[in-house]
């Protein structure tokens, strides 16, 4: 049984560019959450998706957007990249009616 799969594992982008990160949830899970973890800090909530809609959003600018597909997989898009967007981006899947979260191993984004 596959857990949460995130791709790519690492990537390097230039300031001003756009990036798309991908997440496949654990089998049976229907909800996907995205977190940003800067170096040496705890994760910060970006948003959560359920039934292909944004269910809740954290304190992130509109440059951060997402999408959930009918198969429950999700994408995180970041436009106009800034140096401060360099971080580990974690995806977590869960069931909407409770239970625990399963995390992926993250995507390490470096903006230069």
């Amino acid at each position, binding site marked *: 049984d596959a857990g949460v799969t995130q791709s790519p594992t690492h990537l390097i982008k230039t300031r001003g560019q756009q990036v798309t990160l991908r997440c496949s949830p654990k089998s049976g899970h229907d909800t996907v*959450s995205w*977190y940003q973890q800067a170096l*040496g*800090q*705890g*994760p*910060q*909530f970006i948003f*959560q998706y359920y039934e292909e809609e944004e*269910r*809740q959003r*954290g304190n992130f600018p509109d440059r951060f957007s997402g999408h959930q597909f009918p198969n429950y997989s999700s994408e995180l898009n970041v436009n106009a990249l800034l140096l401060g967007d360099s971080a*580990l981006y*974690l995806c*977590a899947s869960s069931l909407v009616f*409770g239970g*625990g*979260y399963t*995390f*992926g*191993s*993250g995507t*390490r984004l470096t903006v230069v």
Partner: protein
Amino acid sequence: AQTVTQSQPEMSVQEAETVTLSCTYDTSESDYYLFWYKQPPSRQMILVIRQEAYKQQNATENRFSVNFQKAAKSFSLKISDSQLGDAAMYFCAYRTDMDSNYQLIWGAGTKLIIKP
């Protein structure tokens, strides 16, 4: 707004000894969940233990146990018989589903070093 504070940036313990990691939180809610996650160098967050606020009994999972003090808003993690594989970053996290708030709120983490 809810906050989670981990006041120990780093802790070290001798292998086979016991160590306690501290966590305090601030909330006005009465119904919530508290978690301890482990993040090894592989980066994946792994759930160590979970506590529901309405349960007075402290959660335990094998060598891991918590001391949940609801009135004091304290949630410490005790690791008994420490093993080399316990070395990792440990994060305390909070969640409430009240008012359609589903996010996990995290502390800054504690780096646990195990001395052989």
